[in-house]
């Protein structure tokens, strides 16, 4: 398939998401406003009020109802979308689990914002990190272009009949949500063809008859029953089995999208940057990867063998890809934009360290908690991290396993 002719637009991350939703033939959008996600729902409201989409858009009274509506709209057979972040995502917490348990392929954009208290509207990833166990696909994007591309892919991923897993696309508050970037958008018909229409799988209904997996008066099924110790466990394992199938499907959809757009993000799961011969490497998610790439380039001109591993999907967590990418590195700095209070470091650190336990060599691994509540992460601080890594390689000694960086002492 040839690469489609694209339009270059000046869009913020939020606008890029709204534009992708506009093109994706979505049946129902139900959302509640929260800074800095508001531009998504504002732009989408304009599309609705100007007749540019035939989506049913419902402005509900809370995020809890936003996701509750999406869940049953999805169960009725509709393609659905919502967006939130921070306290809004926390209010959805209960329904996140119900949605994935119901195998409802809801797509949601999350604008990563700090959790209260104290109240703060700026970027960190605490909100979506705590939802990593909720049974949703999690894709973290680096820039507005990727926010657009990933939103389109998310519908295909979530609704894939071998998965039926809800998907969230994470973009950093303000750094992405409110910052204009050049974004290439595909023609409407190309997107329509790529996302297609939602296909409802057949399942065994009452009495063993094959029926569509939706609320359908012709073929009534009971959804969301009381499920006790005799079946609940099997249903939960089915969710895990679907999650195990997800990496391959995400990669295939990512590659198919690359063929029509010309854009790739690593293999769709991880994006290694100058890692082939790297001795020291950082690991991060989101927009900080962009700044870190610049720092890597600067270090490379000085002959320092630095690299970066950006995790694009945090769920599913691509264990073998991460091992392969970091296996030859001597020291790794994980950058966590959230923290697990009282634990030894942030959540990404825990998983990277645990992953490399099974690697053939064991690099030193340290953690930097950074950027909480929107605190900037300038090149200077990232240079400090790589300087620490050089020292660790040289001395073969870790002085501080976990530290906060960019914080007033």
């Amino acid at each position: 398939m040839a690469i489609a002719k694209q339009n270059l637009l000046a869009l913020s991350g939020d606008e890029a998401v709204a534009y992708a939703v506009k093109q994706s033939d979505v049946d129902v959008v139900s959302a509640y406003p929260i800074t800095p996600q508001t531009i998504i729902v504002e732009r989408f409201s304009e599309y609705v009020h100007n007749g540019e989409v035939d989506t049913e858009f419902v402005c509900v009274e809370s995020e809890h109802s936003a996701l509750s509506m999406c869940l049953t709209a999805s169960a009725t057979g509709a393609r659905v979308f919502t967006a939130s972040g921070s306290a809004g995502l926390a209010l959805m917490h209960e329904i996140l689990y119900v949605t994935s348990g119901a195998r409802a392929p809801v797509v949601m954009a999350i604008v990563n914002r700090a959790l209260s208290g104290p109240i703060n509207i700026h970027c960190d990833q605490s909100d979506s990190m705590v939802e990593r166990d909720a049974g949703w696909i999690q894709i973290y994007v680096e820039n507005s272009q990727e926010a657009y591309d990933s939103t389109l892919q998310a519908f295909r991923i979530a609704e894939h009949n071998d998965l039926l897993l809800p998907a969230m696309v994470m973009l950093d508050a303000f750094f992405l949500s409110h910052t204009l970037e050049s974004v290439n958008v595909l023609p409407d018909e190309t997107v329509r063809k790529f996302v297609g229409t939602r296909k409802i799988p057949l399942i065994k209904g009452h009495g063993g008859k094959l029926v569509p997996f939706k609320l359908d008066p012709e073929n009534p099924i009971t959804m969301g029953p009381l499920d006790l110790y005799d079946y609940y466990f099997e249903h939960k394992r089915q969710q895990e089995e679907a999650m195990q199938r997800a990496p391959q499907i995400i990669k295939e959809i990512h590659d198919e999208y690359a063929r029509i757009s010309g854009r790739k993000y690593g293999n769709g799961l991880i994006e290694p940057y100058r890692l082939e011969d790297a001795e020291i490497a950082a690991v991060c998610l989101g927009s900080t990867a962009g700044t870190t790439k610049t720092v890597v380039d600067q270090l490379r001109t000085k002959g320092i063998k630095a690299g970066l591993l950006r995790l694009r999907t945090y769920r599913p967590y691509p264990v073998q890809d991460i091992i392969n990418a970091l296996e030859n590195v001597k020291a790794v700095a994980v950058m966590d934009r959230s923290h697990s209070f009282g634990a030894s470091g942030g959540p990404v650190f825990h998983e990277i360290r645990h992953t490399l336990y099974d690697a053939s060599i064991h690099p030193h691994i340290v953690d930097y908690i950074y950027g909480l509540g929107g605190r900037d992460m300038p090149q200077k601080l990232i240079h400090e991290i790589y300087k620490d890594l050089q020292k660790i390689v040289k001395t073969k000694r870790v002085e501080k396993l976990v530290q906060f960086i960019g914080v007033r002492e």
Partner: protein
Amino acid sequence: MASEWKFTIKDLAEKPEIFTSGHRACAGCGPAIAYRQILKATRGPIIATNATGCMEVVSTIYPYTAWNIPWIHTAFENVAANAAGIETALKALKKKGQLKHDHIDVIAFAGDGGTYDIGIQALSGAAERGHDFLYVLYDNEAYMNTGIQRSGGTPHGAWTTTSPAGRVIPGKPEYKKPIADIMVAHGIPYVAAASPAHWRDLITKARKGLEVDGPAFLHVIAPCPRGWRYDTSKTIEITRLAIDTCVFPLWEAVDGEYALSAPSKVIALKPERKIPVKEYLKAQGRFRHLFTPEFEHVIDEIQQITDRRWKSLLKKCGMA
């Protein structure tokens, strides 16, 4: 507003059961009787959603179900949002020509906990937005599913496990929240109070709620033998006493215009037929502690609030 639908008891008997036997509700369960009656009022294809609670638990223990229609449960506090999601999806799919049926009714069921308390926000939001669905509150006046804890729908003086009949505080100190009036105040087209003891009235009201274009709210008194402490054979008798004492009058409000329904209208016209609340209270173990010299003043308080609310209802119905 009068429904065009006329039915005989034979029609009802011949209509296939939507809420089927084999569910695990207790003997004498008021909500189960109400569900069966309400679902006799359907006029075509229908999708139901249920809040967490007794009726969700007893009707759907996997892999069994008592439901012969598409049915979904997701959580406790969001059944109105769930109904809104179904209704909106149907609207969207119809617009795109992807719906086989011309119209599908949507019905939401919740208990008093899921309505008066934890679900009122989602209910209020859905009512304000005007989704076309019927919301059925089956009011057994406490959190029965979790073991008889007090809710905003529990009446004054009633014993529950969190409003015990103590030596100092005799049952629930607060009064029952006027939930149906709150729904009328939302400006929705149809609100009604009904009871399974008056089945024709209940089924007619359920039908009106389905027929009306927009949100409809049906408040059904649904006694619970376990929580109210009475013999399982007495459910309908006790329901009737709630109406005859004016503790739970039957009425409807079409576009905000209140009117008494026949069983309560009779009492309005012949006040001598109004039975003292004492008769209703003494039939139930949850009020037993009030029949002591120390706490019998609470019975007077219950009579007073009942009279006050009845008077206020008569005024709204233009019968004062």
